[in-house]
């Protein structure tokens, strides 16, 4: 496996930080934290489980398969995004059950609908340090022809 630079604690465990989440994204991996006590999946990663208050976690890779929960076309954007407007934002439900926000990038002729199948994709950009992280986004899942 490709070597990923991650922040680790003194015992070598990967720290449950947002920066590490995005570093995984920079290497094409959508990762969640799984609470060892109560099995809750977390994105963003946290140091204390919001369900059971445990601090024992492991990182697991998600499939990236998702269904669209809601979406909006942004026409008036903040300065750093205004050149991209209109663009689509959304909240998706990942196959593993947790939800995530992100950009939805589809062809202009695609009619978006709640419940649509999506799959995660990652920007090509290289991380240039906190907090300029490589982003994930969602695109249409490939329909397999019968």
């Amino acid at each position, binding site marked *: 496996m490709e070597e990923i630079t991650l922040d680790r604690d003194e015992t070598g465990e990967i720290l449950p930080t*947002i920066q590490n989440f*995005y570093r995984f994204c920079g290497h094409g991996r959508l990762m969640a934290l799984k609470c060892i006590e109560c099995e809750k999946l977390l*994105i*963003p990663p946290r140091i204390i489980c919001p369900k059971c208050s445990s601090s024992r976690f492991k990182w697991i890779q998600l499939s990236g398969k998702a269904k669209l*929960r*809601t*979406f*909006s*076309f*942004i*026409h*008036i*954007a*903040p*300065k750093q*995004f*205004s050149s*991209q407007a209109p*663009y689509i*934002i*959304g*909240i998706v439900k990942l196959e593993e059950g947790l*939800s*995530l*926000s*992100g*950009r939805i990038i589809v062809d202009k002729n695609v009619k978006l609908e*709640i419940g649509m199948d999506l799959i995660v994709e990652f920007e090509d950009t290289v991380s240039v340090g906190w*907090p300029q*992280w490589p*982003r994930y*986004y969602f695109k249409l899942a490939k329909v397999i022809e019968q």
Partner: protein
Amino acid sequence: MIEKPLAAIVSAGLSKFGKLDGFSAREIFTYAAKEAFDKCPNLDPRKDVKGLYLGHMTESAEHQGHTGPLVADWIGLNPVPAVRFENACASSGVALRCGIQAIKSGFVDVIMVGGVEKLTHLATSDATEYLALSADNFFEQWHGFTFPGLFALIARAHMHEYDTTGEQLATIAVKNHHNGSLNPKAQMQKEITLEQAMTSRVVASPLRLFDCSLISDGASCVILTKPELAKRFSDTPIYIQGSGQASDTIGLYERDDLTSLNAVALAARDAYEMSGMKPKDIDVAEVHDCFTIAELIISEDVGFCKKGDGGKLVQSGDTAIDGNIPINTSGGLKSKGHPVGATGVAQAYEIFLQLTGQAGARQVNDAEIGLTLNLGGHGSTAVAHVYSTTI
């Protein structure tokens, strides 16, 4: 068991809301404070007022932090303790609740609570960016989520789940602009038509320009005291009977239900429980219509109608000034304006006017019980208060 009433409001002030060119935040607040002082001749501000709690969100707008003592000095309250509260759009709602706690604790007998914001000198894209600060930086802002965008996500989910329509949302805008046309301090004192609202340009689909509140300058304040001291300062005080506040996730995506604002339901529940009031007892309400969908969902979550019926509620006319449960008689954030830090206490100001019969052309007949619901961000904070004319 907390003894009631929690506190009394003996005076209140509001600056004009709108584009107040040439005035800085500290100066704008002075106009609100001056109204409150002038309306309360029995109050000696220097002698009686023992603190200032100030809601203020965007220090970057004027490149000015530390606004608590700054504003206290500008209104002649120096050297009383002065504290700035920042809970996004709920900043002064939270300041009000903390002011009540200061009174209840016995630390002070009289305190001024208010809020201020100065935003209209900014470019729209800068203002949009500052207001988005109340959303999750790393998972929302970083991906280009705007504030209208987040409420658009909520609106789309509500439309999908309950068949809520753009026309129902526009009806809220039309109502609130009508109310604002009757409020001399409102930023936009003009009526709009349903067609105008429904054909205005899309900001973040499905929300259009007229679904969004305004970018505003303005300030608000109230003078709080112990109930037993109220009559010393005013013949017609109003009383705060219940207070509730709750929090929710900073990221919208972490919520299982996108059609409801859980913190709103919890804050309202606690305020009702403390006051002994129920939704049907409320004569007039000011709720946080930062977007039309917010008013619609809050009207459901505070119990004015069944979940999913918020659209039907506004279309029935029940939330108009002469309806069963008038909502946002001031014009709301939509038409009166939304100087973020001032908004929570501006709601209390409107209830003060309504319950003391001073609301002029927008007066609700026989208003005796009022409710305010102030939202921070996309519901990461909610603050509810219940007010009455009698102890």
